[in-house]
């Protein structure tokens, strides 16, 4: 059934249909609506057989999730920004212990200066925590990804973050079609942990590993992570078969003419300017770029669905040797460039592609269609630098007037 829903509500309902046994979270903007909705569903019984645990911090939220998952329960939490950083130590522990927790990250900037709005700095700060990181292009995908995330995480015994742009998606209302409870039940296997803490058969997990074994432990974790791309791709494929729409996957392809998402779209070719992006800006690019095609600019679009593991091979396939690559990057590696650009550059090392980094949308700066078209036009004309900041205002830090709203930004 197609219905009009706020992104956060869509995610909460879909998570509930995945039947988590334990939900433990601490509210922080812009994730709050998700856990509020789950809390209400736990109270009313719509979220059945689930313990909703209130805690005093994100560190405890992840710690409870670790305990629940280790005891054999399907565990879910959500956070953003400083909340993710506050739980960082436990986030790494969850991965190291092989606990397939699913966590929504409502992507938000990190202070200082304090900023509640969207960029990807939070998840990027934990890119090497050993979690899968799946990015939603829109609210339909944000909801759908949670089903895929539970399936892939539990098969791999690797925890998964589902990253969705804070406010831009979490607080936006769209026409969506949620997986029904019956569909999710048919699609998502019951969680069957390989090992679970059991008081009758005591074991310890996450123990000390000294220099004699730490490298090997990490190596095994690395090998398991190498399996992840195939598992994510397979579950995304099954999702497409079961639900008839695309979600997840390693990279998303878009048709050359209408910029519609299509797994069957041909790769770009050498002469194309190919834009690579991740998250909700993909929708803005879909709207912005057809006008450039009409102008005769050979522009193509490729989305990154899985940032961790990074899909180097699938990306190279989609780029098809495209010489001019523009990465729209919502996080900044200070002194270097966009964070995503670094991964793209490593994937394209030794190819003839030239990678341009465009840092955009930091701290909630709206990414405008005309600005994106300007970047692509300049890339096509050979005028785009190796690193640029989209819509950077010159002459110092602007100060908004009293009562300024987004209209003035």
């Amino acid at each position, binding site marked *: 059934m197609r219905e*009009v829903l*706020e992104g956060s509500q869509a995610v909460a309902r879909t998570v509930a249909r995945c039947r988590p046994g334990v939900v433990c979270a601490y509210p922080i*903007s*812009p994730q709050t609506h998700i856990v509020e909705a789950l809390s209400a569903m736990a109270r009313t019984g719509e979220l059945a057989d689930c313990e909703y645990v209130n805690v005093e911090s994100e560190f405890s939220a992840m710690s409870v999730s670790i305990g629940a998952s280790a005891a054999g329960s399907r565990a879910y939490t959500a956070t953003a920004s400083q909340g993710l950083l506050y739980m960082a130590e436990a986030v790494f522990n969850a991965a190291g212990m092989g606990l397939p927790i699913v966590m929504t990250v409502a992507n938000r900037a990190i202070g200082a200066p304090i900023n*509640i*709005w969207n960029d990807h700095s939070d998840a990027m700060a934990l890119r090497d925590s050993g979690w899968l990181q799946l990015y939603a292009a*829109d609210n339909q995908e944000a909801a759908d990804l949670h089903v895929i995330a539970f399936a892939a995480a539990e098969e791999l015994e690797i925890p998964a973050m589902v990253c969705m*742009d804070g*406010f*831009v*998606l979490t*607080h*936006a*209302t*769209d*026409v969506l079609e949620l997986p029904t409870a019956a569909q999710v039940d048919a699609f998502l296997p019951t969680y069957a942990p390989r090992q679970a803490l059991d008081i009758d058969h005591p074991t310890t997990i996450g123990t000390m590993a000294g220099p004699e074994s730490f490298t090997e432990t990490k190596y095994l974790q690395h090998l398991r992570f190498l399996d992840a791309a195939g598992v994510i791709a397979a579950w995304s494929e099954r999702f497409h078969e079961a639900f008839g729409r695309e979600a997840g996957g390693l990279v998303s392809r878009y048709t050359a003419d209408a910029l519609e998402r299509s797994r069957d779209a041909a790769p770009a070719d050498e002469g194309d300017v190919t834009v690579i992006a991740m998250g*909700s*800006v993909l*929708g*803005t690019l*879909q*709207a*912005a770029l057809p006008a450039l095609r009409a102008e005769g600019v050979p522009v193509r679009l490729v989305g990154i669905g899985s940032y961790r593991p990074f899909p180097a091979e699938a990306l190279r396939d989609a780029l098809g040797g495209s010489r001019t690559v523009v990465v729209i990057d919502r996080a900044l590696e200070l002194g270097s460039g966009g964070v995503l650009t670094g991964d793209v550059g490593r994937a394209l090392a030794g190819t003839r592609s030239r990678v341009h980094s465009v840092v955009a949308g930091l701290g909630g700066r*709206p*990414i*405008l*269609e005309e600005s994106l078209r300007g970047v692509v036009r300049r890339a096509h004309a050979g005028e785009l630098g190796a690193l640029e900041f989209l819509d950077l205002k010159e002459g110092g830090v602007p100060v908004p007037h009293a*009562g*300024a*709203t*987004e*209209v*003035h930004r």
Partner: protein
Amino acid sequence: MRQIRIHGRGGQGVVTAAEMLARAGFLAGHEVQAIPSFGSERTGAPVVSYCRFDDAPLRTREPVLVPDVVLVQDPTLLATGGVFAGLAAGGLVIVDTTTSAVEVRAAAGAQEVDATVVTVPATPITLRHLGRPKPAAAMLAAYAASASDVTLEAVKQVFRERFPGAVGEANAAAADEAFAFVRDELTGTSESETDAAALEAREV
């Protein structure tokens, strides 16, 4: 595509208004999207939200820069300068006020702007029915009275669904009264000065 921008203050239900408008638009068969913009999160601070209707699925996440329609839930925002910003030529501006279109234009410094200005006392109407200054239903009913994108019935339905019981009924009653007020205004049976003739001519 039809693009709508809603201005108001924190606490007046500006974000809810955009979401309810999207829901009403969906009932009319449109693809819809509502985007709030969050600022300082203080009651009384200026807030804007956006809504789009289209025939095809909406992809863009860009804020509405060139609105066809602007709804203003608080007339004290007129003087801040942003209300008429980017308005498409011949656009529609609906203001919650007890004053006239002429006074609205003067307050906003928009005497010469190519637009139709409709006024409706949405907050006084809502206070009578609901007892709280949350004029979204009355404002959306005023929109339904001024354009063909959404119907009064759809506006009432989405508020009844969201706020079942007395609150939904009070919103529906406020919507009825605001709709009738604007229809009277547009057909010239009321005394208030509006751009009604212009609106009729333009078929906004």
